[in-house]
């Protein structure tokens, strides 16, 4: 079993979250989940520092569509 806190991920919190879902995990499975979450957490810490307040999820889809409209006629594409 891995340490109580692994890469900023609190094992007890993860265990509680999984227990709330109703899915039963072995201690080894919890270990593997904690390790994966630690990797994700490092990525999140690096990328999610800037404020996200005005960045709504649908803004992503608007950007996909609007970029296509803005650049549609360039170099005969």
């Amino acid at each position, binding site marked *: 079993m891995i340490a109580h806190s692994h890469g900023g*991920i609190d094992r007890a919190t*993860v265990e509680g*979250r*999984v227990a709330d*879902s*109703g*899915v*039963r*995990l072995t201690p*080894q*499975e919890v*270990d*593997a*989940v*904690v*390790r*994966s*979450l630690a*990797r*994700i*957490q*490092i*990525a*999140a810490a*690096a*990328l*999610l520092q*800037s404020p*996200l307040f005005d*960045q*709504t*999820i649908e*803004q*992503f*889809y*608007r*950007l*996909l*569509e609007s*970029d*296509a409209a803005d*650049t*549609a006629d360039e*170099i*005969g*594409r």
Partner: protein
Amino acid sequence: MSDPTTLTLREAAAAIAQGRLRAEALVEACLDRVERLQPALNCFIRVTAEAARGNARAADMAVKAGHALGPLHGVPLAHKDMFYRAGEICSCGSKIRANFVPDHTATVLRRLDAAGGIDLGRLNMAEFALGPTGHNDHFGRCRNPWSGDRITGGSSSGSGAAVAAGLAFGALGSDTGGSVRLPAAACGVVGIKPTQGRVSRYGAMPLSHSLDCIGLLARAVGDCARLLSVIAGADDRDGMASRRAVPDYERGLHDAGSPGSLAGITIGVPDRYYYDGIDHEVADLLVRSRVVLEAQGAKIADVPVGDHGVISELAGAIMTAEGAALHLPWLRDRPQDYSEQVRARLLVGLGVSTTLYLQALQARSRLLDELLRETFTKCDVLHVPVLKRPVPTADETDVGGSTTMPRVLGEIVANTRPLNYLGLPGLVVPIGFTRNGLPQAMQLIARPFRESLLFRVGAAYEAGSGGHAERPRSLAASVI
């Protein structure tokens, strides 16, 4: 005609439309190959031979009668077993859905049918499309036609193997983290992952609604272009499908081989991440592929990109969280019916916090915007590897639910997953072989909805490098 299965999809369609080839003969030729090669490849889950024969006879009668013909008239296709057809079993590569019979038909299947495609059956895949290698504990591992001990890539494993081996002229796949592009690369065929929203997902098995994308595999760039022209476009049954008009993706491909066809196009080589730690043999092939593009008139330039390694991790968080939510009832009640590896991947999603999940989604617009402003203002197309190393063996990647499994699988999808997060289109084109005889590929990436440009560059590469994807040489002896 000697062996009609060696034609490209577009050549086969033209031969049928002009009366030089009967659809029935072509379907029989493909079914004959399925019968001979299925025991070795295990790429089909179900063959619908009689329905295919009936549809082929009808296709031939339509040609004789002078009816208007669709762009795929009489062409044999086969598809990953996750696209619903009303009344027919759709296993999703799983034990849990082994007897699932949907009551509706996927929009993509309807469109392929309407274009005249002949459906040969359903193809093997990773269980619930969760796995980048081609392993499947329930239906058996799909084998790479170039070498049976190597992975096919996944999750659209059967799509890659069947198209590469000439059992079908094209196949649907799905791509949530690389599931079209990886098998295309590992099996030596062309694969397109379109822009997020370009293709309707109605009637396709869901995995991660933020990242799922329907794509295609075929043996030539022009074949993928034709297939995408057929399946793309708005769909009243899928509110997330873009209403943007669908261009004729084949337009402009006829002069792809002419000198200077890529003049004015800049191919960008990322200055970090995508090439980090690449195997030297693979790197050499990629350099040579850029020389071909340069000879066609393209300019090659180093361009900056952000740290897409962290983007890949965020994509993983989104995929596992959304996947776990979909699978929660079965994870609770039928845990024993999942393979170890698939269950282990889904369990990660149960631990992702709601806040992290939503922030990962929120950050997509900023990260896409950065890439468009800082990278795609300096180039038109990005050129990156799909795999950074030669295609691995099945044993190397058969890691079950071990503790190293997420890392090993993470390495395989490292160069494909960022595109799903960013929503961008990616085209995979074969570029040659490593010393182990396995194919390698380049991945071309463009701005949103720029699939036409990708096809243009891919077709120019094909023309400049001597033609479309080869058929596996190792198969010749076993078939002839």
